C-alpha cells in the first residue's frame, strides 16, 4: 500500500529531525531521558527482529547488552577510541550469537525460550566469576576523561535506534522478512515450501544481537560505571519485552510506541518506586498477552479485513 509507506516515511523523518535537533533546545536532564528512550527503542527493535518476527521469544536477550557493555568498557580502558569500542561491542555480541543461535535454534519455540531464560543469568554469573577480566562484582569504573560527552552519547544512541528501526523496516518488507513471518505462522508448512527455517532463524537471531551489543557499549560510556547486576539486568529484560509486545510485536512502529509509553511511565514511577514500575509492567504484559495480542498498534490500525466474500466481487 504505497500511501501508508509514504506516510510512514514522512512521519519517521519528521521524528528523526526532531530528535536530531533536540539537544539545541533541551537541557541535559531531558537529553538523558531521550537517550534512554532511544536505548529502549534500539533494544526493542532488535528483540522485535527475533521474537516479534519469528515468534521465537528470547527471554535472555539482555545478555548481549551486558556483553556489549563489558566489551565496550574494557576496550575503552585498553585505549581504543570510543566509537571503535562501540562497534566492537556490537561485533563481539554478534560473534557470540552465532554459535548460540546455531545451538539453540534447532529447538522448537518453547524449548528455545527456556534455554534463553537462563542466558542472562549465565552472563551475570560469568561476569561475576571471571574477575581477572571483569573485576567481578566490583564492576568497572570509567574515568571521565575517557568518556565521550553526553551529547555524543545522545547521538550515538539515536544512530543506533534509527539503524535498528531501519533494519526492521527493511527486513519487514523483504523476502527474508516474509520467510520469517511464515516461520512464525506455521514452521512446518514453511519448511515444506522451501523455507530453510533454521538458516533463517539463526540469521535473524544473530542480526538481533548486534544492536544490543553496541547499545550496551554506549550505555557503559553513558553511565561510566557498570557491574554484573546493572547490565545483566532482569529488569531491563521485562522492559524490552513489554515495550515490544505492548506497542505491537512484529511491526516497525510497535517498539517506537511502546518505548514512548513505557519510558513515560518510568519517568513517573521509577525514581520513587522501581518495584511498582516493574509490577505495573507485569500487569501491562498480562493485559497485552490476554486481551490485546497485537499490541496498541493493532488497536490503532485495525486491518480492514472481513470475510473474503464481503469485500471481493463474487467469482463465477
Amino acid at each position, binding site marked *: 500500500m504505497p500511501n501508508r509507506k509514504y506516510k510512514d516515511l514522512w512521519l519517521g523523518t519528521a521524528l528523526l529531525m526532531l530528535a536530531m535537533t533536540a539537544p539545541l533546545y533541551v537541557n541535559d536532564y531531558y537529553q538523558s531521558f531521550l537517550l534512554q528512550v532511544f536505548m529502549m527503542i534500539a533494544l526493542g527493535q532488535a528483540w522485535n527482529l527475533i521474537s516479534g518476527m519469528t515468534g521465537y521469544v528470547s527471554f535472555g536477550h539482555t545478555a548481549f547488552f551486558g556483553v556489549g557493555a563489558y566489551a565496550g568498557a574494557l576496550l575503552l580502558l585498553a585505549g581504543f577510541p570510543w566509537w571503535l569500542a562501540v562497534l566492537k561491542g556490537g561485533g563481539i555480541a554478534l560473534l557470540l550469537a552465532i554459535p548460540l543461535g546455531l545451538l539453540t535454534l534447532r529447538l522448537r519455540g518453547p524449548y528455545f525460550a527456556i534455554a534463553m531464560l537462563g542466558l542472562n543469568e549465565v552472563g551475570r554469573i560469568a561476569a561475576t566469576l571471571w574477575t581477572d577480566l571483569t573485576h567481578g562484582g566490583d564492576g568497572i569504573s570509567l574515568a571521565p576523561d575517557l568518556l565521550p560527552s553526553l551529547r555524543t552519547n545522545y547521538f550515538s544512541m539515536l544512530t543506533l535506534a534509527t539503524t535498528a528501526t531501519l533494519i526492521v523496516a527493511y527486513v519487514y518488507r523483504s523476502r527474508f522478512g516474509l520467510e520469517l513471518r511464515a516461520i512464525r505462522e506455521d514452521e512446518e508448512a514453511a519448511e*515444506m515450501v*522451501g523455507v530453510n527455517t533454521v538458516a533463517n532463524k539463526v540469521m535473524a537471531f544473530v542480526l538481533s544481537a548486534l544492536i544490543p551489543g553496541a547499545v550496551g557499549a554506549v550505555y557503559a560510556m553513558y553511565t561510566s560505571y557498570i557491574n554484573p547486576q546493572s547490565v545483566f539486568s532482569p529488569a531491563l529484560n521485562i522492559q524490552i519485552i513489554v515495550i515490544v509486545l505492548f506497542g505491537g510485536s512484529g511491526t516497525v512502529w510497535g517498539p517506537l510506541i511502546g518505548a514512548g509509553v513505557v519510558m513515560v511511565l518510568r519517568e513517573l514511577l521509577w525514581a520513587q518506586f522501581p518495584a511498582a514500575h516493574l509490577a505495573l509492567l507485569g500487569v501491562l504484559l498480562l493485559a497485552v498477552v490476554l486481551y490485546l495480542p497485537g499490541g496498541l498498534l493493532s488497536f490503532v490500525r485495525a486491518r480492514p479485513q472481513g470475510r473474503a466474500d464481503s469485500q471481493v466481487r463474487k467469482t463465477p
Partner: protein
Amino acid sequence: MTTTACGPDHILCTRDLRRDFGGVQALCGVELHVVRGSITGLIGPNGSGKTTMFQVISGMDRGATGSVMFDREEILGRRPSTIYHRGLARTFQLSHVFPDLTVLENLVVAGSRKDRSVEERALGLLGRVHLQDYAPVLGKNLSYGQQKLVEFLRVLMSDPALILLDEPAAGVNPTLRQTLWDMVRHLNGLGTSFLIIEHNMEVVSDLCSDVYVLSEGSVIARGAFDAIREDEQVLEAYFGKTREPRAGRGAPS
C-alpha cells in the same frame, strides 16, 4: 507382486522403507515406484501408513530407514526445504495455509528467491482458478475449500517435477474439487508426476494409471485400478472378510 528395479523411467523409488514408532511398525519395508509423468494412487484403510509414507518421503519425518530415490538421487534424511527445491512438493490433509499472510504472500514465499517475476507467477496461478481478486485477502479469511486450493497452488510455485497430494479434495465442495482435478490433469499433461492419497475410488479409477494399496505398513497390491478392485487381499484389508466370487459393480466407497 514382482519387484521392479528402479529405472530411468521412475521419478520416485522407495526401497525397504521402514519406520518404527517405539514398537509400532508404521512402515514395514515398503517398496514403491512412481513412473515419470504418471498419476499414481496410494490407497489403503486408515492407519495403513499412507501419511507416514508422505512424511518420510517429503523429509518431515527423518526417522525412517531404507532408501528414497527421487530422480535418481537419494533424499532420505534430507531437510524438507532441500527436497522441495529439488522438485518434490507435498500438500497436507488439513489446511496449512499461512493464516496471517495474504494469499499473494502465501504463494510468493513458496517461490524461488531468485525469481524476479515471482509475483506475476503467483497472480497467474491465481488467475487460472479465478482467485486473482483474493490476492490481498488474509489466509484465515478464506473458506476451507479456497484454502485448500491456495495450498495446492502454493506448491506449484516451484514448478515441481513430482507432487505428493494428501487427500486434496477432502472437505472441498464439488465445484472446487473439479477445478482441482482439472488442474491435476492439466499439469500431468505438461509432464508433472503425481502421487495421490485418496479415499474416493471414483477419482482413483478415473485419474490414476497405477495404484498401490497399503495395509498395516506393507504394500499388499499394486497395478491398475480394475485389477486391484478384485484383489482378495485388498478387499479383506478394507472389509475384513473374503468376498463371494461374483463380479461386483461400482467401487467400494
